[in-house]
């Protein structure tokens, strides 16, 4: 029933608008006639005297003008109604939010048992009349359970289970309104509910890219054991937004097949694999990372470089770093300076920073010198009288800047 209601709600506005347009359009055919038949009843046209004798060149623009004026009146009316409606909706949402917040905090801050949780959930179901309020409650409980530990977390989880809004979520997943789908997908993902896989799959196949993205996020959140191999089929339709979402969700997943991802011929997957291994023992993939510093794809090379910077480096890596350094954009070079502490010893760090000062732009010189200044001020003194004027300039600038 509720699903039918949602479909009716979706189509009603459109149908009413079409009916209004048809009624207005029918004026063209009615106003210059003496009358018309409506269910075998003849309805006379009281405006026939005015419009009946008009030549077409006058009649049609005149009727069009009348239609435009009527539509304008509707526009003014609806502008007012929509505006007031929006204001009221925002007020109501604020009220609901406040009500829910006060109720949740009041309950969670006192001692309670599992049966108290059940009673509280039942009370909430009686108080919260709208679906929106119920889903907001669910969302807030979930957030609190993520932010808290021990008893509060347990009570939140218990109340969520007692509320049993799965039917409501299923309804919203099947709703024709995108907003409803998105809200439900986010909740299903946050609550890690695995029983909605068919609905998630349907939405993932949607032509609507927003729904597709959100469905992917939800699938990943509800499948922590995934190895991400399913992305093979979809990599060409994934965007940078998806790339970031996948990383944020799966960064600490244990079953990902990193080698398969990194060695993929699709640059999206290769870049994804390279980014993900930063969170999961990148040292084990060192040789693969070094190999991809020469990838044919710009994106993959840059990801490989970023991952390489995260590795614990020794003296032999210094040559690799300096040899490949020039091919990367400034933003990555600056990152390299930030990550010098990943070199295993101070000698290598100094060597690298010194190389940067001797061989790069003033901006890079400055940042490298600043790094040296930060951990051992005395080491920059040698640049004061350096043979290279740019190095000397950088030294003076650094002193002006910091002292």
């Amino acid at each position, binding site marked *: 029933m509720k699903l039918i209601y949602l479909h009716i709600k979706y189509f009603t506005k459109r149908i009413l608008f079409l009916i209004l347009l048809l009624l207005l359009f029918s004026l063209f055919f009615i106003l210059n006639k003496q009358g018309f038949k409506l269910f075998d009843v003849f309805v006379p046209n009281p405006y026939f005297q005015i419009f009946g004798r008009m030549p077409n060149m006058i009649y049609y623009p005149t009727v069009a003008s009348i239609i435009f004026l009527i539509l304008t009146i509707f526009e003014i009316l609806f502008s007012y109604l929509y505006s007031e409606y929006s204001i009221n909706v925002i007020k109501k949402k604020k009220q609901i939010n406040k009500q829910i917040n006060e109720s949740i905090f009041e309950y969670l801050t006192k001692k309670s048992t599992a049966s108290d949780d059940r009673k509280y959930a039942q009370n909430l179901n009686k108080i919260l009349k709208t679906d929106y309020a119920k889903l907001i409650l669910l969302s807030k409980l979930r957030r609190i359970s993520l932010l808290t530990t021990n008893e509060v977390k347990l009570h939140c989880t218990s109340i969520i289970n007692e509320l049993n809004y799965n039917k409501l979520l299923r309804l919203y997943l099947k709703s024709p309104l995108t*907003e409803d789908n998105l809200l439900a997908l986010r909740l299903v993902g946050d609550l890690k509910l695995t029983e909605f896989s068919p609905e998630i799959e349907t939405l993932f196949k949607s032509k609507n890219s927003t729904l597709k993205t959100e469905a992917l996020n939800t699938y990943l959140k509800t499948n922590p054991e995934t190895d991400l191999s399913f992305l093979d089929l979809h990599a060409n339709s994934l965007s940078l937004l998806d790339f970031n979402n996948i990383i944020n969700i799966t960064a600490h997943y244990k079953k990902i097949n990193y080698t398969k991802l990194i060695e993929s011929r699709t640059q999206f997957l290769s870049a994804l694999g390279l980014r993900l291994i930063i969170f999961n023992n990148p040292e084990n993939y060192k040789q693969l990372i070094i190999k991809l510093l020469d990838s044919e794809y710009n994106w993959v090379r840059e990801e490989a470089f970023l991952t390489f910077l995260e590795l614990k480096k020794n003296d032999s890596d210094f040559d690799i770093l300096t040899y490949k350094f020039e091919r990367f954009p400034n933003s990555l070079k600056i990152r390299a300076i930030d990550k010098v502490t990943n070199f295993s010893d101070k000698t290598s760090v100094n060597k690298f920073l010194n190389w940067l000062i001797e061989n790069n732009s003033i901006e890079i010189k400055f940042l490298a010198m600043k790094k040296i200044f930060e951990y051992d001020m005395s080491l920059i003194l040698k640049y004061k009288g350096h043979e290279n004027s740019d190095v000397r300039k*950088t030294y003076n600038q650094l002193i002006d800047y910091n002292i």
Partner: protein
Amino acid sequence: MDSYSIIDIINRIFFLYACIIFLSYVVVAFMSVLELRKYLNKNRNFDYTTLLGFHKLPSVSIIAPAYNEEKTIIENIKCLLNIKYQDFEIIIVNDGSKDNSLEIIKEYFNLIKVDLIYPDTIPTKLVRGIYKSTNTSYTHLTIVDKENGGKADALNVGINLSQKDLFLAIDVDCIIEPDAVLKMVKPFLEESHTEVIASGGVIRVANSCEIVNGRVEKVHFPKNIWARFQVLEYFRAFTLGRMAWARINGLLIISGAFGLFSRKRALAVGGYDTNTVGEDLELVVRMRRYMHEVEKKKHKVVFIPDPLCWTEVPESFSILSRQRNRWTRGGIETIQKHKKMFMSPEFGLIGMVSFPYWVLFEWLAPIIEIIGIGYVIFMVIFNILSFKMFITMFAFVFSFAILYSFFAVLYEAYTFNKYQGVSYLFNAFIIAILEILFYQPLNMFFSLSGNIDIFFGGKKKGWGEMTRKGFSNKST
């Protein structure tokens, strides 16, 4: 051929032209509704702060040319520093100000001159100095002092200096919402097969709004009548017009006061053209042309309908006329420069639809309308056109114009609802009527004068004086 046949032909031409304009407005309204709805469905409940936690986000340079802004420059920069984004920098380009703008900024932000190499990738006027702050809170602020060269030249300096993936070109006195960059960047992340080269935003009228700490706290319908006309005009132009063009990927213009561009692509085309006063339009057209002719890649220029940028619009006849004159000249200069694109299938929809539309219905429309009005008056005087017919056609055009204006008002109420209340609607209705009788004819006149200046008047150069009152900024 007798005179009646000639009149008949002329009538048919005007009638056809009017029908096309009329239909185009209907199509624009329809398409913008679809595009707005798509945008809102996608983004209404999207939590933009999640972008702040992204691992791969394009970096952004916010480039703001400044000329004689000593009264408000500090507040303007502070407003920009409040922007929420992961990796961004602010480049303020002091374009040879004759007042104390630079000294004021230097003192407030503890700036020192730095010896950064200035890469002259795009030729610009002399850069006299680059300044950075010794205060670590302002590490992402850079001030550039240069010889005066105009807005386009100042922007080019910013592009040269920037090391970021994208640049946001803004007017320094615009008020930008803190999450503006997040919203403008999102389209760059969403495409998988098409490269987004630029995204434009809506400019909203800040006149009479309450500004607190560099943010628009409460929106009011302006008190000044000229500003009121422009509110309605901007509703139509931005909310309806540009959204419709963006839907079919036919958008040719992004506002110079607020636009986000791919730095790589802007550099590839040589940055802003300093020889035109319509540098914003010209850059987008040139970038589009480049993507078609050279890169031959699918690309997009998108439009964000959220009210993210607020600016002060002209409140006097003289400043408004200078602004509109400049817009006309800028449009004509761009059309002349890129006339190759007119009706050229090589440029796809841009060449076959957008560019011809711009020529026929943006540039030529005011001229044809003025001729049309003159022609109608001539016909009425010489009894060729009956007065009854004249009144009927006038009523038709008048009622359609009000309908269209109010459609934009309705859509604003439905989407962002920044203006509220019965008195606003009443005032908007009065303005919609006065607009047709008074403001639109004035705009036609401004456009005509722009045409005369460029073709007959020894080409007026430059922006002219654009005095602004500045916002009365309250601080908490």
